[in-house]
């Protein structure tokens, strides 16, 4: 099966692109805030951490669960061809789900 590559873009200077197989996981980091982590690309021992903001209008956290679901779905393989998915692009205002509002940090 081909590899799935995902991209998250904060702005002109902070972007991430990497294979979904390097995804270490994500966690809730507070109301409307999530941290996604990927194996680091520079060979250091620390993960690449991407902060994103998601909708939290109702205070019930279901939007965060929806975002987890769409990220999982986006990372799914796509036959032998592989695929390239832009999960979030704050610069262009494009997101794979309406509850993803922004990429806040790529570090």
């Amino acid at each position, binding site marked *: *099966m*081909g*590899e799935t590559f995902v991209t998250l873009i904060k702005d002109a200077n902070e972007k991430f692109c990497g294979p*979904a*197989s390097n*995804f*270490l*996981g*994500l*966690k*809730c*980091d*507070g*109301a*409307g805030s999530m*941290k996604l*982590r990927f*194996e*680091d690309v520079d060979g*250091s*021992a*620390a*993960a*690449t951490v991407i902060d994103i903001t998601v909708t*939290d209008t*109702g*205070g*019930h*956290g*279901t939007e*965060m*669960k*929806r975002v*987890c*679901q769409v*990220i*999982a*779905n986006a*990372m*799914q*393989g796509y036959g032998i061809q592989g695929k390239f998915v832009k999960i979030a692009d704050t610069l262009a205002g494009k997101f794979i789900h309406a509850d993803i509002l922004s990429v806040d940090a790529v570090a």
Partner: protein
Amino acid sequence: MKAENYLYFAVDGDNDTDKDCAMFPASNFRGAVTMSSTTVEFFFTPQDGTGTTANGVLMTHADIASNVTDGSSPYGNDVHYTVMEKFCQLASANRANTNNFTVVKDLNGNLPANEGAISATGLSEVTALAITID
């Protein structure tokens, strides 16, 4: 390359506090250990990238001593085993053309009015969760 399955956990909160929910690739599962008569902890490769101290999801369930027969396992009264077995069934459930987002346990009960749970809530045996991510 095997298609990945992503495992979702959420505590009894509103996804508004650090580690209220977490998601791990099933391939990062390292193993599960019984911690007491009412708890099993599931360990994953750490999200911090160091590969050292594992992240953990501690699941609480009925006391094995009081669970006389759960009827779902050849181990009879061993709810430890039931939780482990069901977790592994969920974690290895990835097949072509199926959803790869798997809710192992979602205890968030504060749902929007007039809406049910947006997807499965996971293992019925699990009554509490504690997520450890350093």
